[in-house]
C-alpha cells in the first residue's frame, strides 16, 4: 500500500512541464514587458526634456525686449500662448541675479484616469530646462521651463495596457499551443504508463506506438523487448505445464489416457447411458516370462492398437499393465457393443498370433447411471469377474436383469423433478466449508468459506451437489440453481464478516444480462464482506472470451474471481494469464498423482506459473492429512476439505 501511495502522490510529468513552461513564459514576458516599459519611460522622459528645452530656447529668443524694457505685460503676452497650451507645469523668467521676474505655474486639476500606483511606479521626473535671455552680448536673465508630465503618464499608461493585452493574448495562445504540443509528445509516454500499469496487474502488452523522439522510441523498444522476454518465459512455463499435464494424464507407452486422465474425463460429465468396459488380457505375465519384456510390451501395444481401431469413437484408457478401459457414449446399444467386442477379438487374435496363441481376453461392461467413476469401474470390474468366473468368452454386461432401461429413465426424470421442485419451493440449504491457511508451524486460519448448495427432497432428506449436479447440468438447471442461491444470499439478514466463495456455472456467467447487472448485484450483496465467484476451469477454457468479460466486470463491481477444479484441462494455464484470478483451486484428481514424479512436476510447474502471475494456489478436497506436508513442500498452503474442516450450515435466518 505504501508503494501504491508513493506512486500515486506527486505531480504528473505533464503538469510539471506545464508549470515549468508557464514559469519560463511568465518570466520571459515579464522581462520583455519590463524592458519595453523602461525604454518607453526613458523615451517619454527625454521627450519631456526636449520639449522643455525647445520652449526655453524659443522664449529666450522672444523675451529680450520685454526684459530689457522691464515690460512684464509684454513678457506675459509672450509667455502665455505657450503656457496656455497646457503642456508646461511652470515657466519662470529670472533676472541675472536669480530674482523671479515673471512666473506661471499650472494648477494640478487632477483630472486624469491614471491610477496613483502607476504614477508612483513610473515616477516621471518633470525636467526643467533653462535658456539664457540675452540682448547682444549682455545677459538679461534666464528662462526656465518645466514640462507637465500628465500627458506622458497617459501615453505610458495607454501603451502599457496595450502591450499587456497583447502579451496576455500571446500567453493564452501559447498556453493552448503548449498544451496540445505537450499532449502529443506525451502520448507515447501515456501508452507506456498504461502498459506499465497493466504489467503491475500481470498483463503484458506491447506498446504499438512509434514515438518521434529518439529517447521515447528507445524507451518503447526497451519496454517491448522486456514484454517479449516475459511473454516468452511465460510461454515456456505454459508449454511445460501443458506437457506435464499431458504426461500426468496419459500413459507413456500407448499414448492413451491413464487412470487419472480417465477420471478427469469423467469429471467433465458423462451421460448416464454411457457404457464403461474393462478389457483385460491375461497372457501378459506369460509372455513376459516366456518371450521377454520386449514381447510383452509389443503385446500391450498391439492390444492398444486393436482397441483403438475397434472402439475408435470411444474414450480409451490404460488402467493397468494389460488392463484397458473404454467408455462408449449413450448412443451405443448393448448389441452394438457386443458386435464390436467380437470384432475386437478377431482383430486382436490375428494381430497377436505371432506373440501368443490362443489369447485370453475378457471384457466387463457397465452403465454409468448415477455412479461416480470408482463405483462405475467397480461395476464393470464385477462384470469382468463374472466373465472370468463363468468362463464366458468375449464380454459380459453387468446385471442385465436388474438394470432395465425404463428404470433408468424414471430415475433421471425423478432427479430432474426433484431439482426443479426444490428450487421452486426454495427447499435449498446453504452450507459453508472453509479453505484453511496452514502455515509452516502448523497454525491454521480461515482464508474464506465456500458455499455448498444442498437440496432437500419431499421426505426432508438432504441431497448434496455430487448427487444431482450432473443431471442439473444436462437439463440446463444450473443457472436456476445459481439464481436461487444468489437470491438467498441477497435476502440474508446477517452481516457476513467472512469472505465467501460461490460456485458460479458457465450458464450464468456467460449471460450478457448477468454480466451487465453485476453492479446492481453488488449493491444487493452489501451485507457480505466480499464474494468471490469460482468458475470451473473447463468452462473457462471452453468460453475464453465471455470468461474474460465476466472477470473484468466482476472485478469492476468489486467481486472476486477464482478458478476451481484447476489443472485438468488443456489451456488452463493460458486462461490464468487472461483472467488473472485471485486464486486457483486444484482439481482433486491431481492429488492422486502428487506422489508420482510426473504429478509433482506438474504441480510444481503450476505453482511456479501461478507465483509468476501473483496468483495463490489452493488444494481442494484432500481427504488425507498425509498430503498436507507434500502440498506445503510445493508451496500450496490453502486447503479445503473434510480433512481440515468439515462443512457446516450457513446461518442466514432473518
Amino acid at each position: 500500500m505504501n508503494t501504491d501511495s508513493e506512486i500515486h502522490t506527486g505531480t504528473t510529468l505533464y503538469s510539471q512541464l506545464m508549470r515549468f513552461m508557464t514559469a519560463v513564459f511568465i518570466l520571459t514576458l515579464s522581462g520583455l514587458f519590463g524592458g519595453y516599459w523602461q525604454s518607453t519611460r526613458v523615451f517619454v522622459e527625454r521627450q519631456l526634456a526636449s520639449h522643455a528645452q525647445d520652449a526655453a530656447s524659443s522664449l529666450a529668443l522672444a523675451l529680450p525686449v520685454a526684459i530689457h524694457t522691464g515690460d512684464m505685460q509684454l513678457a506675459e503676452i509672450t509667455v502665455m500662448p505657450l503656457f496656455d497650451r497646457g503642456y508646461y507645469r511652470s515657466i519662470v523668467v529670472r533676472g541675472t541675479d536669480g530674482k523671479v521676474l515673471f512666473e506661471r505655474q499650472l494648477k494640478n486639476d487632477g483630472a486624469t484616469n491614471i491610477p496613483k500606483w502607476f504614477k508612483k511606479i513610473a515616477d516621471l521626473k518633470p525636467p526643467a530646462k533653462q535658456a539664457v535671455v540675452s540682448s547682444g552680448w549682455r545677459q538679461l536673465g534666464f528662462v526656465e521651463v518645466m514640462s507637465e508630465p500628465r500627458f506622458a503618464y497617459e501615453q505610458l499608461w495607454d501603451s502599457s495596457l496595450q502591450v499587456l493585452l497583447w502579451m496576455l493574448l500571446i500567453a493564452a495562445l501559447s498556453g493552448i499551443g503548449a498544451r496540445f504540443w505537450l499532449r502529443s509528445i506525451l502520448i507515447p509516454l501515456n501508452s507506456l504508463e498504461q502498459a506499465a500499469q497493466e504489467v503491475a496487474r500481470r498483463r503484458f502488452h506491447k506498446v504499438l506506438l512509434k514515438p518521434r523522439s529518439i529517447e521515447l522510441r528507445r524507451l518503447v523498444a526497451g519496454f517491448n523487448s522486456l514484454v517479449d522476454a516475459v511473454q516468452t518465459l511465460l510461454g515456456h512455463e505454459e508449454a511445460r505445464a501443458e506437457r506435464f499435464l499431458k504426461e500426468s494424464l496419459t500413459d507413456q507407452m500407448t499414448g492413451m489416457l491413464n487412470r487419472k486422465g480417465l477420471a478427469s474425463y469423467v469429471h467433465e460429465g458423462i451421460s448416464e447411458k454411457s457404457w464403461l468396459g474393462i478389457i483385460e488380457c491375461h497372457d501378459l505375465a506369460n509372455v513376459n516370462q516366456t518371450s521377454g519384456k520386449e514381447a510383452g510390451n509389443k503385446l500391450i501395444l498391439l492390444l492398444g492398437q486393436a482397441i483403438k481401431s475397434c472402439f475408435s469413437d470411444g474414450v480409451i484408457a490404460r488402467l493397468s499393465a494389460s488392463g484397458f478401459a473404454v467408455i462408449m457414449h449413450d448412443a451405443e446399444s448393448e448389441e452394438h457393443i457386443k458386435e464390436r467386442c467380437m470384432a475386437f477379438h478377431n482383430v486382436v487374435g490375428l494381430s497377436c498370433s505371432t506373440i501368443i496363441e490362443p489369447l485370453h481376453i475378457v471384457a466387463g461392461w457397465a452403465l454409468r447411471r448415477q455412479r461416480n467413476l470408482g463405483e462405475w469401474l467397480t461395476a464393470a470390474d464385477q462384470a469382468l469377474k463374472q466373465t472370468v468366473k463363468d468362463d464366458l468368452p468375449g464380454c459380459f454386461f453387468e446385471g442385465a436383469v436388474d438394470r432395465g432401461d425404463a428404470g433408468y429413465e424414471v430415475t433421471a426424470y425423478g432427479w430432474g423433478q426433484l431439482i426443479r421442485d426444490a428450487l421452486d419451493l426454495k427447499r435449498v440449504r446453504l452450507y459453508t466449508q472453509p479453505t484453511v491457511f496452514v502455515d509452516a508451524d502448523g497454525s491454521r486460519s480461515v482464508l474464506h468459506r465456500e458455499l455448498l448448495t444442498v437440496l432437500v427432497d419431499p421426505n426432508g432428506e438432504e441431497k448434496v451437489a455430487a448427487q444431482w449436479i450432473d443431471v442439473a447440468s444436462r437439463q440446463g438447471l444450473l443457472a436456476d440453481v445459481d439464481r436461487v442461491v444468489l437470491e438467498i444470499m441477497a435476502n440474508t439478514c446477517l452481516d457476513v464478516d467472512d469472505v465467501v466463495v460461490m460456485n458460479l456455472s458457465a450458464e450464468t456467467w456467460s449471460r450478457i444480462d448477468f454480466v451487465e447487472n453485476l453492479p446492481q448485484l453488488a449493491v444487493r450483496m452489501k451485507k457480505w464482506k466480499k464474494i468471490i465467484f469460482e468458475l470451473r476451469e473447463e468452462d473457462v477454457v471452453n468460453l475464453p472470451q465471455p470468461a474474460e468479460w465476466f472477470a473484468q466486470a466482476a472485478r469492476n463491481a468489486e467481486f472476486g474471481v477464482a478458478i476451481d477444479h484447476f489443472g485438468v484441462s488443456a489451456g488452463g494455464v493460458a486462461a490464468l494469464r487472461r483472467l488473472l484470478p485471485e486464486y486457483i483451486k486444484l482439481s482433486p484428481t491431481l492429488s492422486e498423482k502428487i506422489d508420482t514424479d510426473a504429478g509433482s512436476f506438474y504441480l510444481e510447474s503450476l505453482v511456479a506459473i501461478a507465483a509468476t502471475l501473483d496468483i495463490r494456489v489452493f488444494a481442494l478436497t484432500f481427504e488425507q492429512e498425509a498430503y498436507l506436508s507434500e502440498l506445503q513442500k510445493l508451496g500450496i498452503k490453502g486447503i479445503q476439505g473434510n480433512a481440515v474442516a468439515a462443512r457446516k450450515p450457513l446461518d442466514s435466518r432473518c
Partner: protein
Amino acid sequence: MKSHTHNLVRRVLYLVALGGIATGAWTAHGCLIGLSERVMHVMSERFGLMATTRLKEWQRNEQRIHVGVKDLQLLESVNTLANRIPYSTDQDIWGVEDYWATPAELVAVNAGDCEDYVIAKYFTLRAHGVSASQLRFVYVRALLRGRLGTHMVLAYYKTPDSEPLVLDNINHKLLPVSQRPDLMPVYSFNDENMYREGASGSRKVDSVSVVRRWGDLVARITKEKQL
C-alpha cells in the same frame, strides 16, 4: 575659420537639437595634463609621431599656468596657448563639413577651426577653476575679409551682467565686446543649463544636451580620459 551659407536662424535652431551626454566638473589638474600613455599612443597612431611631441609640449605649457592665477592672466595665457595652433577648415583636416575636435585631437593634429579653439580654451579654463556660468560658447556673425560670416568665440562674464571678454582665434587679443564691433552675437550656450529637478528639489546634470554636437564631443573626451 569656415564660412557657411546656411540661414543663421536655421543654423541656431538646428544646434538646439538633442545631443548625447553632458559632463560635470573638469579635472583641476589641467585639460590635457594627466593624459595616459595609451592616449598618447593612440594619437601618435592617428596623427603621426609628432602628435606625442605636441601633446607633451602642450602639457608643459599648461603646467606653467599656475592654479589660482588672476583671471585676466589665466585668460590671456590660455587664449595665447590655444591660438598658437594654426587654423585650418574641418574639410581640410577631417574631410567633413563640420567636426568638433577634442582638445587632445586639436593639439595632436596641430590644426583646427573656430569651434576647436573655443572648445580647447573652454576645457582648459574649466580645468583651471573658472566656473561654467562665467563662460559661454557664442555663435556670432563676424566681418571676415569684408563680408559677414558665421564664427564662434568664447565669452567670459566676470559677473552675469558684466561686459564679457572675448577669446577669439581671429583677433588674438583678449578684448571686451565693446571693442569688438566686428562681432554680432546670435546665440550662446554653456553646459551649466542642463539640469533636472530631483525629488527633493535638488538639481542634477541632465542627459539632454542643448546642442547636438556637444553630447558627441563630451562622449569622445570621456572616452579619451578612460583610455
